[in-house]
């Protein structure tokens, strides 16, 4: 199917089903129940899950395949976002030009940064990309305020020129749309106590994510993808096999920069504003964490990692003391207090602590990320292979090219 082998096609179909059914899957708990706190099936979070999935998929093409660890990819996401919002301010609220231009601008910017940074490798490369990103952030926040809005960012206003759109009535909110279909349109499905929200913006983002995921599978299975893994494995042999590794890594860098730009453009399409903080180094660090947490170099890992972190950020951070007290209200007072006291430091404002602990646990016990965890669980169920090396074999199997 689509030029994929059976296994990859299967993976794509699974991801597609998961993405399309996300409003159901992410809302497993009935409205009003205590567990409803853990529901993630609302448009904003679903959109963020797939958009950061795209970001991580793109980052994985660079880091997972070539091993070049960029610490500045948030800059491309930010530049893409700024490009998109300017298209919306100047041209039209239709998301297509915004997204296309954000990919192009991010691609050009990554070409410049990549061309310079790829002159070095290892940690020197990482620091070069970090330096570019930090400069972009610092300038966007301060002296570039006329272009970027600085601290307060940019939002579309009804007073913007928008040459392609009809003028809005005074005071009307410009809304991002796809040929008239507004990103925030949607409908709800009610089944018993469950309420599921279907949102146009989410489905547009999800389709884009599926295309991005499909392209990343094609890249992984292409001769180009193999060359990138060769760069990671042995650059010396690469050079003595008549291959110029520079254009390969630069191409990977630009592709991943364009993915970041796409994610940035989509972020603006779904939520029409940009702030400079999305270029700060911690945002670049976040995509590194997503990729490694999920499993660098695997196809599905980055998407899992992105989902995991965004879920933590948006769900766990909202559990406050009164929510906890509600949960344990059925228990005797003393036990309730103890439980709340134990759990409270890890949720709500303590969500960073939980995140940090989870990173450590994953890195210590699951070096291959969540994908390795999944494989181990799979192994336990299958029990067909007692071989200690089976995990590595499995990982190798996943890396196998389509040729075989």
């Amino acid at each position, binding site marked *: 199917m689509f030029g994929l082998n059976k296994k990859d096609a299967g993976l794509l179909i699974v991801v597609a089903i998961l993405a399309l059914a996300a409003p159901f899957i992410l809302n497993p708990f009935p409205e009003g129940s205590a567990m409803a706190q853990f529901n993630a099936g609302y448009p904003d979070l679903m959109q963020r899950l797939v958009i950061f999935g795209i970001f991580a998929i793109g980052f994985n093409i660079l880091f997972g395949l070539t091993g070049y660890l960029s610490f500045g990819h948030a800059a491309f996401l930010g530049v893409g976002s700024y490009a998109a919002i300017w298209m919306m301010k100047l041209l039209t609220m239709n998301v297509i030009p915004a997204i296309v231009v954000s990919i192009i601008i991010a691609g050009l910017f990554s070409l410049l940064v990549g061309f310079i940074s790829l002159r*070095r490798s290892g940690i020197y490369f990482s620091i070069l990309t*970090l330096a570019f990103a930090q400069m972009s952030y*610092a300038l966007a926040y301060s002296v570039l305020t006329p272009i970027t809005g600085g601290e307060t960012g940019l939002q579309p206003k009804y007073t913007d020129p928008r040459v392609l759109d009809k003028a809005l009535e005074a005071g009307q909110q410009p809304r991002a749309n796809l040929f008239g279909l507004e990103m925030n349109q949607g409908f709800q499905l009610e089944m018993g106590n469950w309420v599921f929200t279907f949102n146009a913006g989410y489905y547009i983002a999800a389709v884009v994510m599926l295309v991005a995921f499909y392209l990343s599978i094609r890249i992984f299975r292409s001769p180009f993808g193999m060359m990138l893994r060769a760069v990671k494995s042995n650059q010396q042999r690469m050079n003595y096999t008549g291959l110029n590794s520079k254009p390969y890594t630069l191409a990977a860098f630009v592709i991943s920069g364009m993915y970041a730009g796409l994610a940035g453009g989509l972020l603006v399409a779904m939520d029409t504003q940009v702030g400079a903080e999305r270029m700060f180094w911690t945002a670049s660090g976040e995509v590194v964490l997503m990729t490694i947490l999920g499993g660098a170099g695997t196809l599905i890992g980055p998407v899992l990692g992105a989902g995991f972190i965004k879920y933590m950020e948006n769900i766990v951070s909202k559990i406050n003391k009164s929510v906890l007290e509600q949960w344990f209200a059925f228990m005797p007072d003393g036990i309730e207090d103890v439980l709340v006291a134990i759990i409270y430091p890890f949720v709500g404002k303590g969500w960073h602590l939980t995140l940090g602990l989870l990173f*450590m646990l994953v890195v*210590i016990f699951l070096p291959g990320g969540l994908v390795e965890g999944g494989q181990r669980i799979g192994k336990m169920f299958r029990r067909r292979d007692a071989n200690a090396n089976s995990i590595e074999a499995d990982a190798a199997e996943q890396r196998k090219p389509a040729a075989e």
Partner: protein
Amino acid sequence: MDAILLQILNGMDKGSAYALIALGLTLIFGTLGVVNFAHGALFLIGAFCAVTFSKILSLSHVVIDESQKDFLGNPLKVEVPYIYDMFGQATGDVIIDWAVPLSLLFTVPVMIAIGFAMERGLIKHFYKRPHADQILVTFGLAIVLAEIVKYFYGANPIPTPAPSAFAGSFDFGAMLGFDPNTIIYPYWRLVYFAFAAVIIGGVFAFLQFTTFGMVVRAGMADRETVGLLGINIDKRFTIMFGIAAAVAGVAGAMYAPINSPNYNMGMDFLVLSFVVVVVGGMGSLPGAVLAGFLLGILESFASMSVVLETLPGINQIIIYLVAIIILLTRPRGLMGRKGVMED
């Protein structure tokens, strides 16, 4: 002229702080080959050792004073530090005033203990893992440590003043024959500069002139061979980690009066210290120190208003710009060795 002198002085001071932080990072990388993203957190813990120590000194019991009222109209609760009971109020005040320098006595053992625990409990298992794993696990640890500090001390900066003997500033201008008040510099920053110089010199001397240092340096160059010689290099590396943690810790403790410590200061310093280390050349101690001073002085110059008028925003990016230029002209930083951290 006096403006330039002042910024050189200022840059030296700033540079000494950068160099001191970068030194510990380089020690760990150079000896153990581990990229320690939790190094900023060690600096943070050092600063909070000073905070904790001054809190301990001011531990109080409550005396209810019926003659005064608090803001709600209840009788005022007056806190009397135990240290007053022990030494009397006058001596007690002096001790509390000197809390930061005294806290070094507390910081050093605590930091060495933390360093040992970190190395034995966590880092040891990561020597053979890829650098990316080391970065990730220590980054996770940095988050956890910062959050623990936040849990106990909140997010607000905590004022930790230097002893009042060091309040105010020294007038270099008057000494050098310029107008008074043109080149002034705070006493505590001068103390910090001297302190940094002593620590940096101490670490170099220790590595250069002691047998322990020689073995460690040999181990930095070739770990396996030293191991083959029957020397327990692992144990020495643990000690080295403890020393590096202590260096970071005392750097943090002494820094507390300069910037009131808050839980995020480790992260603030992390990126900066990495830039310094990389510009200096991974694993090179003199490189780290040199880069620290270089970046400190350049940053000071970039913040001069004459410079800012011609190049607005240069103060925002100077460090990164210099880092890029240096890395493009000198592939492995100022004094880096070939093949270190290049893959």
